[in-house]
């Protein structure tokens, strides 16, 4: 899904934008949830309730208790600690994949918008080709060809972010180019590259930010799916998808194990989506009334 509001420049400046953002319930809820998840990932570097590399055979598949809030897995590892450490993997994969998508897609989209003509056609057709591949299928194919693992999962997810950002950047830039201040810049003798960098990019930055949160959320879901089928991060590195796979085979004995990693994924994705909704509301008050 791509997000294209009718107007995406906060016309009344940053402080008014922030005021509107803080008035948006979606933004506040999304910001708090996202911040908490990020905090959890950071804390996991210094402290977890238990050591995730410690296998305690005697403590296998315990139900949630005071000692192990979320219970333990089939190796006796503390599930809460594994979820904390696993968040690093999810966030890193999704974040770098967004970075790849933005890093390659935004220049492509801006170039297409600035030059137009055959180059524009070429970029758009390239997008069509990538979009013709069902993303998940190709991610499976890529990780299968180049081997499973977190790095290849990043590449597989990142490739599909490229056309998304190219499309959003192009659409945004195309709406900026006919504006008067661009004409003024051209009259002042600035070249297309300089105009793109100095005038177009800052004006579509918020638009890209909203799409970024959407792709971030989708990346978390995709990474979880890939790890679930064994193509993402490899054990012993904890990952949410892998934890769900392990839990599935033991669902009869320890049903709660399948609960917490799934909740972690859902809450993270929910937080990011709310954040994105909140930012777009604040950018475009007209749109909010429609929501």
């Amino acid at each position: 899904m791509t997000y294209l509001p009718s107007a995406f420049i906060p016309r009344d400046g940053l402080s008014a934008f922030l005021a509107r953002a803080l008035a948006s319930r979606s933004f506040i809820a999304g910001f708090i949830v996202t911040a908490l998840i990020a905090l959890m990932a950071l804390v996991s570097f210094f402290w977890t309730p238990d050591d995730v590399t410690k296998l305690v055979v005697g403590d296998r598949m315990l139900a949630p208790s005071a000692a192990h809030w979320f219970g333990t897995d089939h190796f006796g590892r503390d599930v809460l600690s594994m979820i904390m450490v696993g968040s690093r993997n999810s966030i890193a994969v999704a974040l770098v994949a967004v970075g790849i998508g933005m890093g390659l897609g935004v220049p492509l989209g801006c170039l297409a918008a600035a030059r137009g003509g055959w180059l524009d056609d070429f970029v758009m057709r390239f997008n069509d080709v990538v979009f013709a591949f069902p993303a998940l299928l190709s991610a499976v194919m890529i990780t299968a060809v180049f081997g499973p693992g977190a790095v290849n999962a990043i590449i597989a997810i990142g490739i599909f972010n490229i056309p998304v950002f190219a499309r959003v950047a192009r659409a945004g830039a195309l709406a900026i180019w006919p504006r008067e201040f661009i004409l003024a810049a051209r009259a002042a003798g600035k070249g297309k590259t300089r105009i793109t960098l100095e005038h177009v990019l800052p004006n579509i930055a918020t638009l890209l930010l909203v799409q970024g949160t959407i792709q971030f959320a989708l990346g978390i879901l995709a990474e979880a799916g890939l790890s679930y089928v064994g193509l993402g991060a490899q054990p012993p590195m904890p990952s949410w998808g892998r934890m769900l796979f392990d839990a599935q085979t033991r669902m009869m004995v320890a049903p709660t194990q399948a609960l917490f990693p799934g909740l972690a994924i859902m809450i993270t994705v929910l937080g990011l989506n709310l954040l994105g909704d909140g930012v777009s509301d604040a950018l475009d008050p007209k749109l909010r009334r429609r929501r």
Partner: protein
Amino acid sequence: MIAYLAQRLLVAAATLLAASLVVFAMLEVIPGDPARLMLGMNATPDALEALRNEMGLNDPLPVRYLDWVAGMAALDFGRSYTYSVPVIDLIVERIVVSLPLALISLALSVVIAIPAGAFAAQRRGRAGDALSMGAAQLGVAIPNFWFALLLIYLFAVWLRLVPAGGFPGWSAGIWPALKALLLPAVALALPQAAILARVTRSALIETLGEDYVRTARAKGLPFGTVLWRHALRNALIPVLTIVGLQFSFLLAGTIIIENVFYLPGLGRLVFQAITQRDLIVVEGVVMLLVATVVAVNFLVDISYAVVDPRLRAR
């Protein structure tokens, strides 16, 4: 209209061509010799060489690519390296699981989402709106394979209403087969329904602001009639686009869901083929899915013209 169709058809053909090049090139870089895979480690060099010649593996790359594409145009996807049967047979055997699954989930998604979206639009800003859109937010955020696990636990392990996995085959009767597809279809449909409900709602709210809606209301039509008769039809374009996109997503989405439920569909076939290095099967299935996406997008383009007479005049 003709020009519009011709242009869309050309784009579709070019996309397919480019996609075939990508798939061929990508699988070409995988190490491994199909001839050795078929004959085993003890094969004599002569036998290997003979098989390679027979399979055309010694031909130059462009020739092999053209052979492959020409074969696919005639629905001949080659022979599986591991099973030594035509790839098309494997695909047909599996597609009778994946296609009904995707169609059932698509139907579920539409049946849930359009009324839910319309309901929310009708009660905009009120409790019903907040409730259904809150549910949609949750639906988008839930990973479908996790939702599938919860469904298995609730309906198969706990209530014992449906099997937890596996597929009895259509020969076992329509009902047992449908029962096996029910949970996977629900799991696949939920996130799609959530997305579609949001799109339906915002498209409807946009059309509800149009002048003809005010006219219809002014001449005394009840709000419900205006919404369902006039606004919904005009809001269909974005909804159709998403439905089209979702069909391909659902076909590919089966790849993970089929693994959750141990369903012998296309997704499992690709998976097994990848682990067995049966690349010709992977190529065949991927191209089939890409062709489906391209075909569906083309159909969506045509349906725009059907829904929106302004496009027909172009």
